[in-house]
């Protein structure tokens, strides 16, 4: 397994979100075992707090699932990582986010987004572009010109990574929006992979898809974690238990519990997690 090549990502102590701000700050200088760290991250819209002081580390080369009932702030959390709230005037973000050692709020949003890929709930390939152009969109949109062989290589490599090559190799020049929903979503994943992001955020990537397409995406996520860190939001607890290595449970804007998936699903520490997992609410 690819995972063994890398340092074991999570230590028990740092998984505990009750750690004080100070103890987090003292650890930042140490070599990154975690690719992403959130410190007291709060997000509000028009003065109303949606996400309240989240402290969380995200393990490298693993799948971390964020689950919680609708409106709990899970999408708000991952959109903060990609600086998507910059686009909304009403959003206020406070706290710190580090990708490796870099402060994500100090860098320019464009730079952050080139390192942090995002796939949205609804598949959104660019309708005016072909399949191949969609894969290369990250380059064209950043004004980087590629040579022909580089383009061909990038398209094939990333469509293969996204398990789409065999279906798409004869349709590279078809418009991206004529594909099926599942294919569109995998195309969106390929588009993010093509710019070699360090972490891939998935915002309920399968909620608009049928079970078969969902299965394909889930298999793909399993395969991809060998090369890339994946942080996904899901409201499907079954999905979280199937494919994630770590699971965070967010409820009413608070990080309630964060642990290895096995532990959360077998011996949840918090009553609310237990109630959520047993379907009592959410």
């Amino acid at each position, binding site marked *: 397994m690819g995972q063994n090549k890398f340092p074991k990502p999570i230590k028990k102590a740092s998984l505990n979100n009750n750690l004080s701000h100070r103890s987090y700050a003292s650890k930042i200088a140490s070599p990154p075992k975690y690719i992403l760290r959130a410190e007291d991250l709060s997000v509000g819209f028009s003065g109303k707090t949606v996400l309240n002081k989240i402290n969380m580390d995200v393990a490298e080369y693993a799948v971390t699932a964020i689950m919680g009932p609708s409106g709990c702030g899970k999408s708000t959390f991952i959109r903060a990582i990609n600086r998507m709230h910059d686009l909304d005037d009403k959003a206020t973000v406070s706290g710190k986010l580090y990708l490796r050692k870099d402060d994500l709020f100090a860098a320019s949003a*464009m730079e952050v987004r080139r390192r942090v890929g995002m796939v*949205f709930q609804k598949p959104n390939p*660019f309708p005016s572009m072909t399949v191949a152009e969609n894969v290369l969109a990250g380059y064209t949109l950043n004004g980087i010109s590629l040579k022909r062989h580089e383009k061909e290589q990038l398209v094939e490599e990333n469509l293969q990574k996204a398990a789409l090559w065999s279906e798409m190799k004869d349709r590279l020049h078809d418009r991206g929006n004529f594909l099926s929903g599942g294919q569109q979503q995998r195309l969106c994943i390929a588009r993010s992979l093509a710019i070699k992001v360090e972490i891939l955020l998935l915002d309920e990537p399968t909620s608009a898809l049928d079970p078969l397409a969902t299965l394909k995406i889930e298999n793909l996520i399993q395969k991809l974690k060998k090369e890339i860190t994946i942080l996904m939001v899901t409201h499907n607890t079954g999905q979280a238990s199937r494919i994630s290595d770590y699971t965070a449970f967010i409820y009413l804007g608070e990080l309630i519990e964060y642990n290895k998936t096995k532990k959360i699903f077998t011996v949840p520490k918090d009553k609310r997690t237990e109630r959520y997992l047993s379907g009592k609410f959410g």
Partner: protein
Amino acid sequence: MKEQGLGRPRDIRSLAGYGNIARRQFKNRLFTGLCLFLSILVVIPLATILVVVIKKGGLNVLSAGFFTEITPVPNAAFGTGGIANSLVGTMLLCVLGSLLAVPLGIAAGLYMAFSKRKKFCDSLYFFCNTLQSVPAIVTGIFVYTVLVKPFGSFSLFSAAIAFALVMFPIIALATAEIVKLCPLAIIEASYALGASFYKTIVKVVLPYSAAGIVNGFIVALARSAGEGAFLLFTAFGNPFISYSLWQPTSALPLTIFQFAISPYENWQEIAWGASFVLMALVLLVNIVSKLIYRKKF
């Protein structure tokens, strides 16, 4: 009434039977008939215009040299002369006016759609709406005062400015409206790949909205090209083909106006022919725009 055949629950069936069915059906038919009658009434003038123009002007167009010769002198023989100078003038105006109005209109439309300074955008919107409803003759007087008088001559240049002023608000408003329809999802997707605002607009939003913007442009072009009032103050008219920016120029609506009110019969014939050509052009342009729009949406 058989309950099973209608498949309605009992209480609703009894409600449906309430009142005088025959009277209600009569009222319904009366209303439909009235709508039909009124719509036919509206179509009659348009159809009449088409018939008269085709009848009076259609034949003239067929004469040799109608498109290649310049306008004839008064009382020349029928069938001599053409509208070449007006056609050239109108074409030049279309090209120059579009070159001015399209970039400005699209830029203004994009700004109105995307800027976060809402109050300023609202006033821009209001400004464009007002400019759109300014009568063309007022636009003409305005351009006459600020361009024609200081330069000391009627010119293609001043006419092109007036032409662009008529086109600009239509393009700006159409762009703003169409660009707002671009789904947030694909704009977000572009930003999520690290694209700048500029690249997002050029590579994602504009290609998506292209058909709508082209449609807006064509509507603006048709409106401007068919408008004659502002030309009286700016282009003035020219019996010869002129390509100079600083010379007066002829244009189709201008020729129609000047020739139709003249006492010379051969000029009146030319005016009918020019009307036919102008109408055919505007109609063609409108049909093309509809086709483009339908293909996209």
